[in-house]
């Protein structure tokens, strides 16, 4: 990769806070968040008018969380700068040096995306905060609001269902990527770590990056490929660097590496290195020569730019077309040769095995381990440890020396290794998944004859961990007070097969029911020991009740059941007294913290005034050379300063608490929505938002219970 240009901004650049905007409608400027709450704007094309002022600073004076540009106000015909901080969103017109609007955002701003939402005509500024997504227009009016399962960590627009309209993709800190069409969730994808970034590639494909160093590509909500690295990925961008008409995925890493990968295969096309961590990758026609350039900024403020290679254009040309074909042929020849070598080796290996088996193995059946050995796996619940146990057992005396299990979501890393001592022919692996997710475990068990063996057979086994493996079936349990009730038009044996699929240790045969249409299954949670009952009433056709005190679990089960039965619309009524009581407390606390916040802000204003007065006084004393009083003034100034800092800490603390409670509120709405499907689901979200805005607490409770507001 040969850079086209290179320069240094001379200031630090914070990771991910870089964008390119045309603030006068024509000339692009790199805008980057830097330390001490400032935004740096690099305007190389202003040099002629203002040679001293290539770099400008905007003082935000708060911790900047996101910087995005876009034509939010179409009438202006130029980009405006959108800056997010922990508590506010500011939209600023750089050209006019004026705010379009400044808005306090209670849920905080973690990430901003600029684009078009379905059903809303003008472009909007989408803000992802703590468990919520909001959209604002150019006046700061709220046009859209919905909740998510956790704090939003990334946002992007991509047409993942191929209907011509881009959907909003929301990555959250609970490892999920959700595709939203208006309020409706098209699909939830569970990834393996916090989703740092999502970037649309082209058409229905998008690229993503995770906290622990994975980058990959999804094609219409199914994963095309991914690679993991031991380094942290800081940023990704999609840009057609080799000029073949398809953008490549470019990833910038913590260790200063920039990699260009083919979006189809994930193969590395080329790479470059920096001395400092890569802070951001952006592309724009930065030199105003009509060609887009890819630019990479490091955290030290170094910028390097690359033009799309011209060789790509030559590829399509006639002359070198032959060479290209030849090169391709040569590659496939090498591939074939490699394949040949591999096959030869494998063939030789099998032939050798066959030969040895025939010569001496026939009588004894003794290989690395007896050749008729089998490995059995089963899942059992362990109530005392609160875990799910995976039992692995060989069919004879051969011992399992080591077990490696690869599975997403189950372990801290991507896998778990066991080395039982002394080795025996059965191994028990204790697994306690933190989340209810269905995963496939890829088990590799190294099995040998004795402890001192040097060669081991590797059993490879895929085993599914059902979604609700952490719920253990019991005969009797006391019924919890919370419950969700809904009607599904299905026979009990369909429900039974869902239970078989989603839980462990469920017998094949449905127990002889009391009535032909009824069903009752009891579980206890291995995590908390709390009971959970699923019943289907015989009186009313298809009336199902899930009894649990955990509203979230109930929601997960409703969603999973609907997915299994392919139900798209579902109304339900919920009654969770314990959760509701807690929620009531949360709401009270929100009020309390809000009150405290007002009071503290007022107090701070007083102290700030005192500071001003003291400084003036001290200056007066200095003029009068009254050192004694000067000293006094300064010492009280120091004291006031100390007070201010203490006050600030209090406020910060209070704010943190408030945020946590607001998150609880949003999560409650999310939980309530998850008890329903389809239209009812989005209606709950909208109605709850309305109720909160009107501070209608009773209404809110009713919506959560029934799914309808008072009017409906």
């Amino acid at each position, binding site marked *: 990769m040969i850079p086209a240009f290179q320069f240094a901004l001379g200031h630090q650049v914070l990771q991910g806070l870089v964008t390119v905007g045309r603030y006068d409608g024509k000339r692009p400027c790199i805008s980057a968040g830097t*330390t*001490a709450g400032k935004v740096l704007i690099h305007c190389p094309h202003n040099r002629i008018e203002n040679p001293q002022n290539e770099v400008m600073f905007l003082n935000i004076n708060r911790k900047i969380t996101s910087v995005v540009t876009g034509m939010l106000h179409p009438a202006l015909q130029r980009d405006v700068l959108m800056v997010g901080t922990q508590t506010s969103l500011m939209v600023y017109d750089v050209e006019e040096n004026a705010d379009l609007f400044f808005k306090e955002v209670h849920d905080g701003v973690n990430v901003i995306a600029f684009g078009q939402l379905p059903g809303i005509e003008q472009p909007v500024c989408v803000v992802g905060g703590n468990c919520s997504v909001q959209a604002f227009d150019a006046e700061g009016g709220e046009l859209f609001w919905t909740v998510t399962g956790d704090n939003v960590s990334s946002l992007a627009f991509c047409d993942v269902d191929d209907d011509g309209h881009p959907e909003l993709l929301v990555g959250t800190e609970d490892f999920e990527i959700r595709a939203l069409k208006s309020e409706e969730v098209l699909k939830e994808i569970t990834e393996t770590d916090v989703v740092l970034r999502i970037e649309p590639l082209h058409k229905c494909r998008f690229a993503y990056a995770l906290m622990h160093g994975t980058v990959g590509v999804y094609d219409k909500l199914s994963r095309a490929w991914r690679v993991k690295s031991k380094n942290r990925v800081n940023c990704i961008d999609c840009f057609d660097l080799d000029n073949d008409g398809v953008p490549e995925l470019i990833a910038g890493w913590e260790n200063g590496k920039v990699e260009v990968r083919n979006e189809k295969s994930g193969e590395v096309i080329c790479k470059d290195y920096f001395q400092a961590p890569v802070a951001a990758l952006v592309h724009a026609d930065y030199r105003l020569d009509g060609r887009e350039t890819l630019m990479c900024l490091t955290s030290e403020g170094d910028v390097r730019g690359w033009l799309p290679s011209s060789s790509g254009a030559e590829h399509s040309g006639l002359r070198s077309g032959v060479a290209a074909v030849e090169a391709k042929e*040569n590659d496939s020849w090498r591939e074939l040769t490699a394949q040949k070598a591999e096959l030869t080796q*494998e*063939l030789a290996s099998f032939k050798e095995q066959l030969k040895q088996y025939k010569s001496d193995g026939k009588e004894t059946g003794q290989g690395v381990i007896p050749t008729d*050995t089998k490995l059995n796996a089963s899942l059992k619940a362990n109530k005392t440890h609160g875990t799910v146990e995976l039992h692995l057992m060989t069919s004879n005396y051969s011992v399992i020396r080591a077990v*490696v299990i690869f599975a997403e979501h189950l372990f801290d890393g991507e896998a778990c*290794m066991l080395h039982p001592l002394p080795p025996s022919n059965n191994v028990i692996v204790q697994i306690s998944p933190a989340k209810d997710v269905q995963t496939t475990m890829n088990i590799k068990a190294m099995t040998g004859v004795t402890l001192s063996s040097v*060669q081991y057979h*590797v059993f490879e086994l895929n085993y599914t961990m059902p979604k609700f493996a952490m719920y253990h079936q019991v005969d009797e349990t006391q019924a919890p007070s919370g419950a969700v009730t809904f009607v599904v038009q299905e026979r009990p044996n369909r429900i039974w097969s869902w239970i078989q699929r989603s839980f462990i240790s469920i017998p094949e045969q449905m127990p002889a029911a009391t009535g032909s249409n009824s069903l009752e299954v009891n579980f206890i949670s291995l995590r908390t020991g709390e009971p959970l009952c699923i019943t289907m009433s015989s009186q009313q056709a298809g009336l199902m009740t899930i009894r649990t005190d955990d509203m979230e679990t109930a929601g997960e089960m409703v969603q999973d059941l609907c997915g299994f039965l392919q139900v798209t619309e579902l109304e339900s009524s919920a009654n969770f007294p314990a959760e509701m009581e807690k929620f009531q407390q949360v709401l009270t606390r929100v009020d309390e913290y809000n009150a405290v916040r007002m009071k503290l802000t007022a107090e701070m204003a007083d102290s700030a005034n005192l500071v001003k007065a003291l400084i003036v006084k001290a200056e007066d004393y200095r003029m009068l050379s009254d050192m004694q009083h000067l000293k006094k003034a300064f010492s009280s100034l120091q004291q006031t300063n100390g007070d201010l800092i203490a006050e600030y800490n209090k406020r910060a603390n209070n704010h943190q608490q408030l945020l946590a409670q607001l998150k609880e509120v949003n999560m409650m709405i999310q939980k309530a929505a998850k008890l329903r499907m389809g239209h009812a689901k989005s209606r709950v979200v909208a109605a709850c938002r309305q109720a909160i805005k009107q501070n209608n607490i009773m209404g809110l409770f009713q919506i959560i219970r029934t799914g309808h507001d008072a009017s409906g």
Partner: protein
Amino acid sequence: MDIQLHRLDLLQCGALQPGTLEVLPVGKKKQQKIAVGDDTGILQVFYLKKGEVQYEWKSPPLGREISSVVMQMAKDKIFVGCGQSIHGFTRKGKEFVKIKTNLTETINHLFVEENMIWTGGEYILNIYDNCKDFGFVMIKDRINDLTCAPIYPGEILSTVVACQDKCLRVFQGEKAFHEFAVEGSATAIGFHGLNPVDNPTHHVGDPVQMIYGTEQGVVGLCSLDAKSMRRTGGLSDRQNRPGAGSSRRARVCCLHTADISKSGALDLLVGRDDGTLELWGLGDAALAAQRLDQAPTPLWETCLQESIRSLGSGHVTGGDFVEVVLATYGGKVLAFTPSSAAKDPTGTQMAQQEEKAEAGTSLMTRMVKGHKSSDLEQAEIKQERARRFQALEQEVARLKAETDKARKDYQNLSSEQIAMQTTTKVSHRFGLTSEEACYILTIESQAAIELIALRADVEVDLLDHSGTSAILSRSRGDPQNPLLAYYRMQEEGSRFQIRLRTVEGLSGTLSAFVVPATQPKTAHLISVSIKPLALHEKTPDVSPDIPMNELRLSGPFTVTDMHSWLAQCVNELPSRPTDDEMVICYRSTFVGTQLYGRYSKGTAIFRSDSITTISVLKDIISKEATGKKIQVSMNVDVKEETFAHFLELVHPKLNYQHALTQQVRMVEPLREVQLQEGETKFLHPELQSVLDQASDIQQQFELQPQKLAFLHNMVISAYRHKWRLRGYQSVDHRIKDLQKLLESYNLESVSAFFSESID
């Protein structure tokens, strides 16, 4: 000069041992043939015709893995070392001699001149004259390479042996003549140019120009005569890689010289353990006499991702070029040629060229004919290419079908496809790199590795190894398995390295389950022992005038007893005592403290300026002796002045790390000040320099995050051992104070603390 070498895949055979490939001398035709012997015990001789491999002959299986292949000097007979026997073949493939030796070691190295045969095993050099024993020498440490040359005037050639203990040794018959210390464990030797035996212009007594390579990656050029060895030049072991900074070059596996670049002078070829093949220019031919004094220039380099086992050169494709021929661990035989026709891997263009050369003059006429025929030629080439492609595709399809059938057959016998015995070779090496004070475990497999699972019964620090993309996952350990981790390979590769650091004083075992991606799937278990004094490396001697603590032992033990006990503590010890009175010298690679030991039957003395080392030795020896029921009386002399010396040794490192940690803390606040104030002239010069070197400081710190803690622990353990050897079992109440002193580090105060009395 830019030179481009093109790769030609010649052959895929079984796994190979080092030194099992030879390029046969020029025969009737100009084109040279290649002999290679692999682990299946088959020696094959082949040549290239029209870009395709043709077999001249194949030997019947010799029963064991072939461990060396050489040409008889100045003749065209091929000699093969195979287990404990030597086989001789004529050019035509007739086995004319077979010698069954009574050796216990495998014949790893072989040299044949007229009726004399030299063999090298693990430790023993043997000489045969007319198939009869002529002499043998037991070498002090492992033989890594062996060759012979006329260095001393005499009836027979002198033998040059590259040894593990950082020496080149020269023998004349059974008599040792020279012992030259080199930069590291010598792993390969070769001649600059031809072996002087083959060189008619060479006279006995003239200095012999040799090249050697070491474990650490250094290549040296030296001039050897009856009186001395002179190092005349060499290659540095450092290389710069973009992004990764400078890194060490890998261990040298084989060396060769040939005029590849057609400059008239010999170029140096280096094959390394990590699969790197390098071509170095040694300077202008016009300056032939002084050429070795010039610094070599790198001409070309490639990486094959698996270690290179043998190197040779010759006219193998039949063109005018001298080509490189090499063999890798996994059994690939490759050629690298400057001929651009080799760009076409199908070999069509090569065949074309061959035909042209045969046609000779007709080529000229064709050239005159010009464009039209060239188009015709193009079409011909295209057709031929298509034909070859098809043939290969068919071959692959056939193999696939055959493999499927074999797999099914086997599945009928064993439904889980459990292997009778694995056919994939996996080997490993475990070595110390002194400058980083860490171990490198290198694992190499015949096939691509799928995953490696690690387990150790002692605490082991796994360090980040640049250059691998394998993903590490750790599992929570338990008291029995403090380390449980596994690596998943992301890119295909048959070679893997892990860097790890151990804590001195603990002993245990590290096991690795290596799973190659072959069917039937089998895991190989590799075990290496971690020794309590693992970070000590052998040195030629110790400096005499430093204060040392002393451990004296006496009792009814033999030299062998003591030797085996020592072998539990330190690495690099010969497998058995080589003298009645053994002397050992070691140096700690991290701090630089030394260990000197002298032991014979009944008595032993160990001296070290590190109290920890003495204490560890005492513990291990008393444990082992008790196990063998031998009464050993021990006497420890703790010298007070050693601690000041020890702390001084640690001081530069500790001081540097301490300052670095301080500076790193300041970088961020200073940067903010800089941004707020715009200029920083008002700052203290020290702070300004921190700001100037901010990124350097951060980088340095990131490279060695745990180093400060590691150093602190070392000082603390020295303190513990000091008092333990004086009879105080626990000094925990003092450790806290020491820790505090170390936090605000100052040499004098720590020194004073050490000499304070404890009560």
